[in-house]
Each structure stands twice: as structure tokens, then as C-alpha cells.
């Protein structure tokens, strides 16, 4: 019996591209392929990658906000989706355990609802409170938990700053006492000085409520800070998965290496010393991804084998997984 809270296996999500008005669509956006990992209880798994690499799709597909097109999702020992065995569980009971915090706090809150109602909505849906007083107390408790107070409950989202709105979004996710939260770039829309406040809050909440996070972001230094383990995505596939310190300091995949080196270091002396590995070109289209290894078009080590075979995602040392044919040459 595994000790994972959440397990996904070969999870796949392909979106059809709208073809002509009459014709059926022929192309698929291969947004996510062969996603396989597990998250232990109380752990934070970070997920990084560039735009279009499928990280948001991964977060949403795990919660079945997008219906997966293949693979298996097991939550707490119960299979909630299995393409082969044709299992697709009703999600409502699981919504109480699995929640999400969205990227854009300006778009994810209904402008016509008060903050109190926004936070109260999941309580109503899951019928968590018997009386009105109970409901009110619970809402105030949630707001206080995220650093807001009771007078904020009657205000509307437009009266709040970005950081405060994100706190409302977090309070809404916490309303059902979840066990697992997908944090989909929760801080990338915030100012630098506010980001640290919200990161600290995520850490505090995790400790107090024993939460498990899937923390998605494009900023590797933030992900490194908050996560126990990190998975790096490229064009819908996992390229590397390891302990967060191991991944940033001893990365093996050429993509991870260039990603780490591309981050501007906020330290002038270090910055002058460091040598950037500049990748050529852009991320290819996921409609027509390169054959074999999807990174090969930008990889300095690519050869014939990379075009032929998809590299296997294998464990090279304890807990360190990489998908690359030429690990011996990448130094």
C-alpha cells in the first residue's frame, strides 16, 4: 500500500482544435502526456515550466475540472478516474477534500458577490453549517485565518488590493476544510513585496491545517522555496523530478539546467560570475510536438536517437527522476 495521498498515472489531456465550421477537428493539442507522480500527505510538490508546458492543465485535470483523456487518478486510495477501467467517480464529495487557488485574483472572484458570500458559497454547496449564525462565524473565522477581518465580509472584491483578493481566494478554498490544494500560480499576479506575505501564509496554513499542496508556478526560485520536491515540465511532459535542493543545485536534464541558469540572481557579484546557458529558439507548438524527446529541437545534445525514441522517465538516484537519453554526456 502506497503512502501517497494523491497518485496520478500516465495522466493525459488532449484538447481538440476547432477545425472548420462543419468539419470535425483533426488536430489535438497534446497539452499533457504521461504525467505520473504521487504526493505524500503534508508534502508540497512544486511544478515549474514555461507557458504552454501544461502545468495549469495538469492542476485542473487532476481535479477533473478538465476531464482527462487518459490515465488514472487515485486519491487517498480511492480511484476517482481510470480511463481503461472506465471509472469516473462523482466529484462532489471529493470537492470537499480537493480545492484550488487560481492565478488571477482579479478574474476568479465574482464582482457582484460580497467577500462574505464568496467565502460562504462552498459552505452552502456542501451544507456545512446548520444555522445562519454558524455560517457567519465560520466565514469570519476563515477571513481572520487569512489575515482579513470581519468588516471585510460585506465589501466587494473591487475594494481590495491584489494581495487581499488572493487572500479571499485562499479563504474560499479553505472553507470546506480541504486536505489537498492545487495552487495555480497564486502569486504571479502580485507585487514583489506582497508575494512574500502570501508565500508565508501558505506555509503557515500548511502547518496549522496539515495541508498538501501542488504548487504550480513559473518562478523556480519561489517554487524551490516552498516545495519539498519539484517536477519540471516541458511541452506537456515531465522532464525531471527531484528533491527541491537536489533539483536546483544538481539538475541533470539539459532543460532544467538552462532553466536554473536563466533565473536572474539578485546578487550582483554572483550574477557577474554566473554563466547563463542560453537556449536557442522558442517552445514548439503542442499541436505538432517534435517526435521522440520533445526538448530535442532546443537541446544542445540532441542527436538521431532523441528524434526516434521518447526518453524513459527513470530513476537515476534515490528519488531523482529524469527523462533524457544522454545523461552521460550532459555535464
Amino acid at each position, binding site marked *: 500500500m502506497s503512502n501517497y495521498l494523491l497518485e496520478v498515472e500516465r495522466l493525459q489531456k488532449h484538447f481538440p482544435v476547432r477545425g472548420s465550421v462543419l468539419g470535425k477537428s483533426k488536430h489535438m493539442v497534446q497539452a499533457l502526456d504521461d504525467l505520473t507522480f504521487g504526493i505524500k500527505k503534508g508534502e508540497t510538490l512544486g511544478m515549474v515550466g*514555461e507557458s504552454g508546458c501544461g502545468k495549469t492543465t495538469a492542476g485542473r485535470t487532476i481535479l477533473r475540472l478538465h476531464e482527462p483523456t487518459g490515465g488514472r487518478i487515485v486519491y487517498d486510495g480511492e480511484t476517482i478516474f481510470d480511463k481503461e477501467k472506465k471509472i469516473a467517480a462523482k466529484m462532489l464529495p471529493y470537492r470537499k477534500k480537493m480545492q484550488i487557488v487560481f492565478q488571477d485574483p482579479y478574474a476568479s472572484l465574482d464582482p457582484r458577490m460580497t467577500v462574505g458570500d464568496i467565502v460562504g458559497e462552498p459552505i452552502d454547496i456542501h451544507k456545512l453549517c446548520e444555522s445562519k449564525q454558524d455560517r457567519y462565524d465560520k466565514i469570519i473565522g476563515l477571513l481572520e485565518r487569512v489575515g482579513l477581518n470581519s468588516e471585510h465580509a460585506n465589501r466587494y472584491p473591487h475594494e481590495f488590493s491584489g494581495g487581499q483578493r488572493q487572500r479571499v481566494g485562499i479563504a474560499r478554498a479553505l472553507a470546506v476544510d480541504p486536505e489537498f490544494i492545487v495552487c495555480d500560480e497564486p502569486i504571479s499576479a502580485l507585487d514583489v513585496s506582497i508575494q512574500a*506575505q502570501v*508565500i508565508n501564509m501558505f506555509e503557515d496554513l500548511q502547518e496549522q491545517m496539515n495541508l498538501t499542496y501542488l504548487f504550480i508556478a513559473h518562478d523556480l*526560485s519561489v517554487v524551490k522555496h516552498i516545495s519539498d520536491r519539484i517536477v519540471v515540465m516541458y511541452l506537456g511532459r515531465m522532464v525531471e523530478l527531484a528533491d527541491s535542493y537536489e533539483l536546483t543545485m544538481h539538475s541533470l536534464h539539459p532543460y532544467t539546467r538552462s532553466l536554473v541558469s536563466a533565473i536572474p540572481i539578485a546578487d*550582483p557579484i554572483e550574477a557577474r560570475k554566473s554563466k547563463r546557458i542560453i537556449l536557442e529558439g522558442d517552445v514548439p507548438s503542442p499541436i505538432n510536438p517534435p517526435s521522440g524527446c520533445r526538448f530535442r529541437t532546443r537541446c544542445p545534445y540532441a542527436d538521431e536517437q532523441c528524434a526516434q525514441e521518447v526518453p524513459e522517465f527513470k530513476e537515476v538516484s534515490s528519488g531523482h527522476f529524469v527523462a533524457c537519453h544522454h545523461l552521460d554526456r550532459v555535464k
Partner: protein
Amino acid sequence: MENKYLVNIENERLSFFTPAGEVKALNDVSFKMKEGEVLGIVGESGSGKSVTAYSIMGLTAYPGRLVGGTIEFNGHHINDMSEKEFREIRGNEVSIIFQDPMTSLNPVYTVGNQIEEVIRLHTNKNKHEAKERAKDLLALVGINEPEKRLKQYPHELSGGMRQRVMIAIALACEPKLLIADEPTTALDVTIQAQILELMMDLREKLGMAIIMITHDLGIVASMCEKIAVMYAGKIVEYGTTDDIFYNPKHEYTKGLIKSIPRLDAKEHERLVPIEGTPVDMLNPPAGCPFAPRCDSCMKICLREMPPVTFFGDVHYTQCWLNQKEEFEGKAPEESAVEKGKEASNE
């Protein structure tokens, strides 16, 4: 007398006259820039970093207005220039790269059209020469097959490519000053690295000065020689890159540096955030605008704006704490160390 500075801004005040009242977007902003220098302006959204740079080009949009101070750029007195005169210098002596390359390129004209337009407006090159120049420019910014790209429309290019086209347009007339307003915020990190590398390369080749506007301390650390930290329409600290990173004097600068997670941290360290929220610019506090969020706030901070304190020729801040240190005859370094200890003990 010869003015040896490319940009010389003194006590610039700029306000936006909105229906809700006067918003003092810039409050006594002063700085100088030499030719070929790279200046980074960092600050949060709404701190006035873009407005400062735009005012050098005369791009202050209604209802904004300069209400005081002088701006000199390359011998021009910006304050009393007409729109016609601005047109002469824009694109020619100073040009700009915007944050979002999709919205700043015209979607209905080809890339070639847009580059050639700038060249033909500002030089007396004919159509054929302009096209040749455009091709050279695209090659300069690292776009392959320039001939083919000239005939393409912006939507056919990726984000990084579009930003390269923007840079090509900005550099068409070899300006003395390039203003880069968050040029990489909309791009991915690996593309960001490409663009930053390109900008530094071009600066070496062409020798222009750059004003780099960003909120990312990492970018200024690797690119800039001087840094201006802005908060609520003021430059709260100004100095060389090393001054700002290794000897910050203003509490806001210190807070910013402490609040970013470091990639090379071995053990999990808790971040030290700056508490509170940015100032409401409609009703700014009477004294130092940072006082309500400052851990070392004193009574005087709430009442009066601190004067400028200089450390050496370049480095200066606006903070009462530095005044106090000077007043008490304490070495500033020592007390800064003490404060650091106090902070970590808490």
C-alpha cells in the same frame, strides 16, 4: 557651459488630475545619467517608475501634467518643447520598448512596414535603402531569415520574436537612450535570458544608454550600473548596483532584498515580507510614504518627509534613520548590523 549628462532631471513633479483629486505621481524626482550608462529603476506597480521614464520622451498622457522641476535630455529642455519638437527626438534620440510586444506592434501592418516607417520618417533614406536597413536590423537582433520575416505580420511571430522586432524598431535610428519598460515581464524565463543577453550585446556594439524599468531585482543585479529604488513617486534610494545590494540604507530597499527567495539557499529560511499594502496615492501620508509599513518607523517619519542623506558621491537615500545616525555620530554600518540582528531575533 557644456552639459555632460545625457539625462538630467531635477526635482521633477508630475501629477495626474483625476476626478477624484490630484494624484502626485512623481514627487521631487532627481537623477542624472551619463552617456552609455545603464540605469535600473525598480519599484512596485504604481510607484512611478514608468511615468518617470515616459516624461523624458514627453509621453505624459492626459490628465497628467508636469507641475514642477526641470528635465534635460541630450541638450533639449523637455519642459518647454512642443509636440512637433518631440516628434523629432522620439525614435531618433530616445526610443522605448514596451512590456507587451503584442499590443505595441500594429497587427495590420507587416513587420517590415513598421520598421521601415521609422527609418523613412527620421532619415532621408529611400524605400530600397530603408528595406536594406530593416533587414540588417533584424539580423542584428538575432532573427533568422530576415527577408522572410519582413513580410510577416506580428501574429505570425512568437512573443520573444516580437520583442526582438520591437528592439529592432527602437534601435532603427541608433538612439542615445533606450527606455526598456519591463521588456521581459510577458516572456518566459528562457526567452527572457535571450532578450537580456541581446540587449547587453547591442549596448556594447552601439554604446547607447539604457533605462531598465523592472520589478525584478535579479534583472537589475546582472544588467545595471546604477539603480534607483522608487516608492510612491519618490526615489527613496539611489546608488551603484553594489551600494544597493550590499549596503542598502533605506528600509524599503532592505525589505525588498530580504523578501525574495534565493535559489541557492541550502536550508529552508522563512521569508521576511514587507507588511502592509502599497500607499493609496490619492491620500498619501503626510511624512515618509513608507512609514506605515516600516518596522523602524519613528514619530517624525509620520510628520515630515525626510531630507536627502548622501553616502559618498552617488549613493543617497531619503530616510530619517540615516539622518538620526548622522546626528548621533554613529557609524551607519554598525547600526545597520545591529538592526539586522534585532530583526533576525524577532
